């Protein structure tokens, strides 16, 4: 991992901005700083981005650096990887990570393996980013949580912020990173407001953040479900259950040390992961915990995932399909033998 300067957010001015503004601010600042950085993807320029993340960037940087591509994920992802091999630093926006599946070969077979296969000669400093996860009633094809699929691959870094502040800090770090970074955003969160430091702001990879301190049970999560964990923790507090909520922020690298530290304190752990359970980051965390905390755990690691079915369309089914506060509360009670 590259070394990064962490600027204490309390030192810089903060103001409330949306998640999408935080992403844009990071990209804009990095593009001002480094001419090798450019953004490409479908509708990113003239249309201002399908979800308005890149709004106004065309005006500042022009069409040579904010590039509208055709609907051609395999082609433009591959092209960007070639450009990264030459030393440029592309940011590739997938309108949705669901559409990255047609680019599986370049993003999985080329980007994360190039450095290794070339014996260290050609790296691939690139950021792939876009909307990930269900929740918008888009049906199964458009609701992919790719963290389960893609985190399996060595050579890539996977980032999944849960709040605007981290969105900016992690995006800045991602763009400066020399390795391929898969940056997962949730369309459901783009309008979320929060305090975000101005100016240079970096959040290092591989450092979880305690979003709520607690003593009875550790909730481990990343991305949008962190917010469901916070809701659940507030609910459980009313029952006298004190949850510690850990926001992993990056799946690869995984800050297992922070999880272990918390579990040694609480002796109980529930992992909340919006991908499917089979072969997932959640199962990986559980497996590593059983290795490191076998004697500390007073119950097996419980897991809350999306249901093991294709994502349904109907509102009620989709809500039940996703990890939600109710299902998290149930898992915590069960884990603590209070069901």
């Amino acid at each position, binding site marked *: *991992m*590259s070394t990064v300067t962490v600027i204490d957010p309390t030192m810089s001015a903060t103001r409330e901005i949306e998640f999408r503004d935080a992403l844009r601010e990071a990209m804009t600042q990095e593009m001002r700083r480094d*001419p*090798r950085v*450019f953004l490409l993807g479908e509708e990113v320029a003239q249309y201002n981005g399908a979800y308005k993340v890149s709004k106004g960037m065309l005006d500042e940087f022009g069409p*040579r*650096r904010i*590039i509208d*591509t*055709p609907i*051609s994920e*395999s*082609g*433009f*992802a*591959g*092209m*960007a*990887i*070639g*450009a*990264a*091999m*030459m*030393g*440029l630093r592309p940011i590739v926006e997938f309108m949705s990570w669901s559409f990255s599946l047609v680019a599986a*070969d*370049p993003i999985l*077979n*080329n980007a994360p393996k*190039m*450095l*290794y*296969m*070339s*014996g*260290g*000669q*050609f*790296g691939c*400093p690139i950021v792939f980013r876009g909307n990930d996860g269900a929740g918008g009633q888009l049906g199964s094809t458009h609701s992919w949580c790719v963290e389960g699929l893609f985190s399996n691959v*060595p*050579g890539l*870094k996977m980032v999944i912020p849960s709040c605007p502040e981290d969105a900016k800090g992690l995006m800045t770090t991602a763009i400066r990173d*020399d*390795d391929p970074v898969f940056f997962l955003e949730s369309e459901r969160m783009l309008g979320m407001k929060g305090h975000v430091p101005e100016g240079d702001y970096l959040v290092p990879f591989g450092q979880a953040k305690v979003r709520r301190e607690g003593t009875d049970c550790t909730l481990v999560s990343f991305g949008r479900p962190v917010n469901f964990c916070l809701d659940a923790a507030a609910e459980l507090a009313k029952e006298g259950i004190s949850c510690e909520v850990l926001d992993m922020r990056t799946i690869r690298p995984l800050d297992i040390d922070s999880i272990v530290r918390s579990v040694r304190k609480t002796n109980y752990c529930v992992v909340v992961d919006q991908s499917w359970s089979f072969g997932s980051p959640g199962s990986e965390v559980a497996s590593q915990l059983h290795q490191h905390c076998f004697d500390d755990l007073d119950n097996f690691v419980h897991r809350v995932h999306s249901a093991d079915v294709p994502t349904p369309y109907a509102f009620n089914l989709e809500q039940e399909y996703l990890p939600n506060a109710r299902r998290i509360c149930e898992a915590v009670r069960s884990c603590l033998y209070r069901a």
Partner: protein
Amino acid sequence: MSMLSEPSTSRPFDVHGSPGERTLAPAATGRRDPVDPALCRQWLRDMLLIREFENRCMQQYQDKKIGGFCHIYIGQEAVAVGCTAAVRPNDPIVTAYRDHGHALARGMAARHCMAEMFGKIGGCAKGKGGSMHMFDREHHLYGGHGIVGAQIPLGVGLAFACKYMDEVIDGRPNSRVALAFLGDGALNQGAIHEAMNLAGLFDIPCVIICENNGYSMGTSIHRGTTMGHDIISKAIGYGIDGYVVDGMDVLSVYHDMSAIVEKCRRESRPAFVDMRCYRFKGHSMSDPRKYRTTEEELQYASDDPIGRLKLHLEERGELSDAVLKDMQREIRDEVRESIAWSEASPEPPMTELYHDVFVEPHGPYNGTSLPKMLQGKDLR
């Protein structure tokens, strides 16, 4: 059909099935400026080196010194040699898995290419890529790629980066052109079509060269590809100029490619080349070649690109027996040495298993400087 008894001028086989050499934008072809005989002899040497290297490579494979898949370039030497001669040393090149010829033509030392196949630390990628994945930063070779067609979007990206660096970062006209090679079978991969659309759309100076040897494994081009007799039509559909080039003749390759490359450089536009050639050996080491006749093979063998160049030089009195003999001896020694060197090169240490996964802390790659593994190596 009894082709063996036919006079040598008869050419009953045409794997490309052309109804005539249609070239919709023929501006670049047809030039035949005289070539400096010394340069011609250099090309002959390069082609002979590839031929000898590949012959020895097959032996090494049979002796189980080389593992995995191994694709032999014999018959197509004029393509790699002519194309690399037509570009500048810093024009990036990317190709598929039949890549030994491109690596050698680009200037990779035979020992580094051989050692890669031996899975030794002295290999161009420290033994971590293998026969299909030859990389050489020093010589601007961006791989060797094993997935059919995957390298073409990358090649377009290389050219995109060249243009971006010149025009957007440095504010000067584009100066470089990328060459991206593919096989005829790769024409049916979606990635190629997406890449051609992007190249056409964004004015990307990439020459996409289809090494059309008439077969993808056992499938003749006509069994797998619609409009197989006229593949430049595919590029024309993307607004890209297409050219048909005789890939069995290094002089044609050099002349035509020089014109095509310079046009792309000048106009900052892509081009597509139907490079007609023939692979003399099987697809890989385990191919009994049941899908074509001996007669067909013999006809194409009589068209050997090395033979053609030799004849060209001999007719002009530019290649004496003594010079040729010396050349052949040197090459034999060089390839033999590459094998001995590769045998002697250590296996990669176990630490290599975990190196180069990420740039830091394990990778030597730091963006611009020569990677550590190549420092001090006698890369030609």
